[in-house]
């Protein structure tokens, strides 16, 4: 691997299942985790729907990939930024989202939430602080 550590940002703006972009974005995140870069995920616009709890695809006949988000902590992917305005516009709140936790190795492995609700202005600041932006 390379010595450089870059800030990688995954932009998730699409709902799950209607199109494959959310699922294939997650596949990139999982592979990318092995490269020891500084990884963040942004969920805005319809992307916030990816994290809604209670997804059940049994009747639809496609794979439910939402549990994979809960495994991201094991891959040291612990920064999931969710835009508050995007939730509001869709009648959603933080309580409607899956609980996604990670163990903080710098804080005696304390369990902490990976999801951080941020304002639109904060999301814009986060985006403006990245080296590589991958859009889905």
């Amino acid at each position, binding site marked *: 691997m390379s010595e450089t550590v870059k800030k990688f940002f995954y932009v998730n703006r699409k709902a799950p299942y209607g199109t494959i972009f959310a699922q294939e974005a997650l596949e990139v995140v999982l592979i990318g985790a092995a490269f020891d870069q500084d990884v963040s995920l942004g969920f805005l616009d319809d992307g916030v729907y990816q994290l809604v709890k209670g997804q059940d695809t049994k009747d639809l006949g496609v794979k439910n990939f939402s549990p994979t988000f809960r495994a991201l902590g094991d891959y040291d992917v612990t920064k999931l930024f969710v835009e508050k305005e995007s939730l509001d516009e*869709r009648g959603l709140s933080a309580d409607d989202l899956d609980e996604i936790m990670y163990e903080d190795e710098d804080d005696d492995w304390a369990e902490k939430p990976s999801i951080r609700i941020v304002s639109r202005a904060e999301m814009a600041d986060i985006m403006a602080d990245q080296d590589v932006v991958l859009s889905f």
Partner: protein
Amino acid sequence: MSTLHTVNKSPFSTQSLLSCLNHAKDGDTILMIEDGVYGAAKGTGLGDALAARGGAVSLCVLASDMEARGLEASRLIDGVTPVDYAGFVEMVVNNDRTQSWL
């Protein structure tokens, strides 16, 4: 003479549901499928526009697409009916034509 309209896009990312609402006539049915099911959730500005047509136009949503997305029946706009694929087929048969708002 009536039309079944299907909408398969999120109303928060495209104009399909809005355009469908603008063209549906009294007595028609609108079925929200795939990402279109998000249009059936209450508590949004769009929900009000949809609810306003709820008397004149039948509003339905495909249950398996709701469940996949974690959209519970309790969150639906009043008057929106979840249907299964058998219900979808019935609606196609009982309306004179089907128009997909892609």
